[in-house]
């Protein structure tokens, strides 16, 4: 395997929002990871875990409250206006909701061409040709350029969103839950398209989702987030086969599998309780309220990611001991 080049490095990233007097929503609270060129990094987690905020901060849509996002070695939060505009050509995003991600008043052609227009990449006939090319790339027809978003289905709109992101030839695309709102067979269409495009255009993806099966399928490595923290990080097959963090284990067990026999035999790890709010979180491990293994230390000290197996990181005070006690749970 050729030496992997780091495209993005996220160091102790924090993104907080003020949601009232003395109420700070700590959406992302100290996250570290690297993304290699050409790979797909997946991030999974449930509502409130901060994965979407993380994605948007990494590609520059939000400004980080603290920490660094190094894109090709350069901290994107320290760019000036002009550099920022140049940077937008390198990192793009695909949104979750196909219904609100396209301006209802613009034609599909103009939506896709917006990036081209902003950066003045092509004009006139060339621009038209480029737009047609993009439409066909995502599996739509040339005629669709004159139509309006409301005439398309969810899956088609999502593909228009992908075409829009690709128009300015980015290197890196954040896919923010791009398939959650779609039907099952359409999800497969979109995922296949994303994989195909990655190979064709040599793209790097940050794939954010709550559907673990889909994330595992498309990602090379996966990080699990819970309430603003990254709790586990490993190669996707390894994560599925050997989850080490109590939360990851519960998440795996909760995924409904479309296979009646397996479902019957599955050991159900019941996770009690609700997901707490990310506003003004208490110190210590965030998972403490729902964790059956929690100790005093867990309430006081926030665990950091430790490499417990090669390329497999876990943020849990007890993970090592649990791993040794139950080697294959």
């Amino acid at each position, binding site marked *: 395997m050729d030496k992997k080049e780091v495209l993005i490095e996220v160091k102790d990233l924090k993104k907080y929002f003020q949601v009232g007097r003395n109420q700070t929503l700590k959406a992302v609270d100290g996250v570290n990871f690297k993304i290699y060129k050409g790979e797909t990094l997946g991030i999974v987690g*449930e*509502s409130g875990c901060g994965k979407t905020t993380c994605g948007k901060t990494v590609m520059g849509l939000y400004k980080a409250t603290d920490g660094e996002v190094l894109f090709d070695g350069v901290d994107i939060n320290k760019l000036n206006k002009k550099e920022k505009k140049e940077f937008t050509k390198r990192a793009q995003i695909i949104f979750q909701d196909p219904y609100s991600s396209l301006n209802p008043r613009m034609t599909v052609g103009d939506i896709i061409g917006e990036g081209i227009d902003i950066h003045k990449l092509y004009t006139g006939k060339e621009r038209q040709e480029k737009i047609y090319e993009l439409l066909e790339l995502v*599996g739509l027809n040339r005629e669709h350029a004159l139509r309006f978003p409301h005439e398309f*289905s*969810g*899956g*088609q709109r999502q593909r228009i969103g992908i075409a829009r992101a690709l128009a300015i030839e980015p290197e890196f695309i954040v896919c923010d839950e791009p398939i959650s709102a779609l*039907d*099952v*067979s*359409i*999800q*497969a*269409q979109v*995922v*296949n398209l994303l*994989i*195909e495009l990655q190979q064709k255009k040599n793209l790097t993806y940050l794939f954010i989702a*709550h*559907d*673990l*099966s*889909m994330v*595992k*399928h*498309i990602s090379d490595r996966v990080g699990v987030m819970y309430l603003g923290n990254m709790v586990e990080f490993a190669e996707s*097959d390894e994560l*599925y086969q050997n989850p080490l963090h109590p939360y990851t284990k*519960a*998440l795996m*067990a*909760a*995924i*409904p*599998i*479309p*296979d*009646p*026999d*397996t*479902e*019957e035999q599955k050991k*159900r790890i*019941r*996770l*009690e309780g*609700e*997901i707490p709010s990310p506003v003004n979180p208490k110190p210590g491990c965030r998972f403490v309220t729902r964790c059956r293994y929690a100790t005093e230390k867990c309430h006081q000290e926030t665990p950091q990611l430790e490499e417990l197996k090669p390329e497999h990181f876990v943020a849990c005070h007890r993970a090592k001991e649990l791993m040794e006690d139950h080697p294959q749970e």
Partner: protein
Amino acid sequence: MKEKILEVKNLEVSFKTYAGISHAVRGIDFDLHKGETLAIVGESGCGKTVSSKAIMRLLPESNTLINENSEVLFHGEDLLKKSENEMVSIRGSKISMIFQDPMTSLNPTMKIGDQIAESILIHRKISKEEAYKEALEMLQLVKIPNAEKRMKQYPFEFSGGMRQRAMIAIALACKPEILIADEPTTALDVTIQAQIMELIGELQKELDMAMILVTHDLGVVASVADKIQVMYAGKIVERGDVREIFYQSTHPYTRALLDSVPKIHSTNKETLYSLKGTPPDLINPPVGCSFAPRCEYGMNICRKKYPELTKFSDTQECNCWLHDPRADVSNLPENMIRRRQ
């Protein structure tokens, strides 16, 4: 076999739209027995939600057209012919429904306790205090912690999972015979989804309640359903018991659905099987099999004539020309073409 409590016969539902008449449900039949769980599976626009709402008579009168000959027989009585008053006494007490979005299904200006009690008071002549007491029991039954305190709270103070539990409490307060659950967990997180499905399963057993589960999530179906029917473009294309559908499905669409879901225990990163195209326009539904434009095994006959019914067992049957003896069955997935009954 337990008694049959619901029989849907030739249900046809259409809607008047500016572009014409949209034939959302084009003639479906099914039965439901006491205590049974029937899953209606399909993608958006296939007509599954419309069918379930039609049973409850919850479709808007102004632009809905239901065929005269359609029947929804609940214990032998046709619900489609009942008056609104009669339906009011059935809804909530004999047949209940829970919806996908718990945020909009609860009244934001009423306390949770009152909403549960309301559903009890509509159907039974008991005092307010008694209704409130039963409402509290329901809330405890759906495992909401601190139920007494929660009774006095408003929906906005509940999380998504808790609201769904509250909705279940309201729906089950009068111990209905049938629960129609329309995508009950689609909007919830995975761990909460697991909790809710488990809860519904337990309550179902306790109350010996039948359930119609409408969903597109095959994973959820695998763990709770007894029978499954797969809908596409307003028609049922295949039905069977849960193992028949998952392990021996006979319709290309069912197969496509099963193949589109990545198997978490597989380690290959092959492209997922994906269907091309989108479901057909229901204003001008195609003449032959509606799945033909997207079916890689399609034949000329598929585009011309709607496939006849083929039975494989007491429970499994499908509508597909591939089971005709003259069909071209080369390269079909294994065990799709089998001996017929």
